[in-house]
């Protein structure tokens, strides 16, 4: 399959690609230049640009965190999992159910709490959920989001993907679309399709005066940064320090050979799903903590951006996923400097992804599988 790409890539495509790279590079350079000049001469407000960068970074961390899992399953099982976004949503619901329970035990019925208030009534604001007021509930929620999703994702693998182990990437991709559909609406069935607020408003925040305005980072922004970075670091260490990481690379290289080498491939696949799922669930939980709302399809809406990040960074590379997430997040927000309003943020992300695919289909960190 990819030999054809090789034909074009290694062949005549080279020059057009370099040309494209040049054009894109030039474009990026001009935009950056414009941004700097604009800031210097006051056309663009510094604080506004800074706010975009901060927002974008936070968003990018979530995309990147969720992206690591997608990237891992993508490279080891060799398929683009379209259900990953809904894993993110599931995780958020699992985790927030627990947060509600811990924070609001007795304040409402068990069902109401564990289903994250499927109906109006006692919600996050009444339970005063915030890292400052209910740190334990949030920690418990995050933990459950991670572990619960890991187990849940493993279960899905057992039921859905395991019987198809030998199939190619495309049948698996199609199947994952089915999983995505089913899962998303099962979430609606169980949790209802109501959007709800999950946290207390008016959180303590750290405000920074930046020449012409404020940039504020509240405690949940901070929590997101700390938790996301810690999780990323944790995964990094886990893959570096244990032979799991190498085995994963070996498997993404050549699954049959791994099997006869004595690597317990099923066990590695299990771990891959579980780590990927756990990260997806945690990302979902943190996203909800950060935005303060939860609904049944936020993960799905995030999915294409996660794909964009993973492809941008290069499939199979966790640094690639993180880096890709940050680029996507920040550029989406920065695009608003030139294209005000939210109309073009997503378009910007997709265009960047398509450009990268055209110039460097293996992604920025492509080939360097960095477990």
């Amino acid at each position, binding site marked *: 399959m990819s030999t054809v790409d*090789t*034909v074009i890539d*290694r*062949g*005549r495509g*080279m020059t057009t690609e370099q040309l494209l790279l040049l054009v894109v590079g030039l474009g990026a350079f001009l935009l950056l230049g414009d941004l700097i000049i604009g800031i210097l001469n006051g056309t663009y407000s510094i604080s506004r640009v800074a706010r975009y960068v901060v927002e974008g970074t936070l968003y990018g961390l979530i995309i990147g965190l969720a992206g690591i899992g997608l990237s891992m399953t993508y490279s080891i099982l060799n398929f683009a999992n379209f259900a990953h976004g809904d894993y993110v949503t599931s995780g958020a619901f699992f985790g927030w159910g627990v947060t509600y329970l811990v924070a609001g035990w007795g304040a409402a019925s068990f069902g109401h709490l564990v289903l994250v208030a499927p109906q109006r009534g006692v919600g996050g604001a009444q339970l005063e959920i915030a890292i400052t007021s209910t740190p334990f509930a949030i920690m418990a929620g995050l933990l459950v989001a991670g572990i619960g999703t890991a187990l849940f994702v493993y279960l899905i693998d057992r039921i859905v993907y395991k019987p198809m182990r030998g199939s190619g990437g495309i049948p698996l991709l199609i199947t994952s679309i089915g999983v995505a559909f089913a899962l998303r609406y099962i979430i609606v069935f169980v949790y209802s399709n109501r959007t709800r607020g999950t946290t207390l408003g008016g959180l303590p925040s750290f405000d920074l005066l930046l020449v012409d305005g404020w940039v504020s980072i509240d405690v949940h922004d901070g929590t997101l940064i700390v938790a996301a970075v810690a999780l990323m670091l944790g995964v990094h260490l886990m893959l570096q320090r244990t032979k799991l990481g190498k085995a994963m690379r070996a498997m993404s290289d050549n699954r049959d050979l791994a099997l006869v080498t004595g690597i317990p491939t099923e066990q590695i696949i299990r771990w891959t799903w579980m780590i990927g799922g756990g990260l997806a669930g945690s990302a979902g939980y943190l996203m909800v903590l950060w935005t303060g709302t939860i609904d049944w399809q936020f993960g799905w809406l995030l999915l294409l951006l996660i794909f964009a990040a993973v492809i941008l960074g290069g499939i199979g590379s966790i640094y690639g996923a993180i880096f890709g997430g940050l680029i996507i997040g920040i550029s989406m927000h920065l695009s608003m400097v030139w294209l005000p309003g939210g109309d073009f943020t997503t378009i910007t992300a997709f265009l960047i992804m398509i450009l990268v695919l055209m110039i460097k289909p293996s992604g920025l960190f492509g080939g360097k599988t960095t477990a």
Partner: protein
Amino acid sequence: MSDTEIESPEVPNDAADPDPQRNDIELSVDGLVKRFGGITAVDGASFEVESGAMTGLIGPNGAGKSTTFHCITGIHRPDGGTVRFQGRDITGIRPYECADYGLVRTFQIAREMANMTVLENLMLPAQNQSGEQLWRSVLPFARQEVEREERELLERVWEVLEFFEIEHIAEEKAGNLSGGQRKLLEMARALMIEPEMLLLDEPFAGVNPTLEHKLLDHIHELREEGYTFLIVEHDMDLIMENCERVIVMHQGSVLAEGAPETITSNEQVIEAYLGGEV
């Protein structure tokens, strides 16, 4: 093209080596270079193949034989050097253009279209089929012409099937064929293009001896009809017995070139390739 180009490959080269029968050179490769990242797979290889002859291309693993084929037939674009076919510069040609010129290659591992029948496989390569234009295939009046061509083509396909003695599997799916039959199909398919020269990449690798003899017979028959062959092969006996000339590649360049006898006694070749024992 690239700085590694050794010298102008044009006339001067030929002039330096006054060859009275210049037209008899079917394919000439000059200073071919191909790099993959840090690896230089082909490093300035130059050689010529005479028309109507059967030439062997040998060399150790990784010498760059397959890569040379890839560069000649446009699967890869060379980083330097020129390729001429029948006097025409075809460097950096696209694979499909290559077939247009009458230069066709087979693959080291047979690449049949597994889900198409043998007949479909053999009808596929025919060149200049007007039915490959969408509108002709669809519009009624043009369609008649297409169908006529198809009938003619089918006749030819049967001739080729007969030639290779595989009529009995005509309606079989290619994916169900045995390894040997696949090799036959691969070669038959190349012939359907009506090429002038065939590049065969290890056509006998993994083919059992009986079948091998049969294939060789076919090849000799074709040679008599005027086809030119360039064959990559590891089996020295086969090369010795069947080729007029042998080219030895080593580390991306041509180490020696000449009649089989001279090659086997060439010190360098023995050292680099044949090892102590022949």
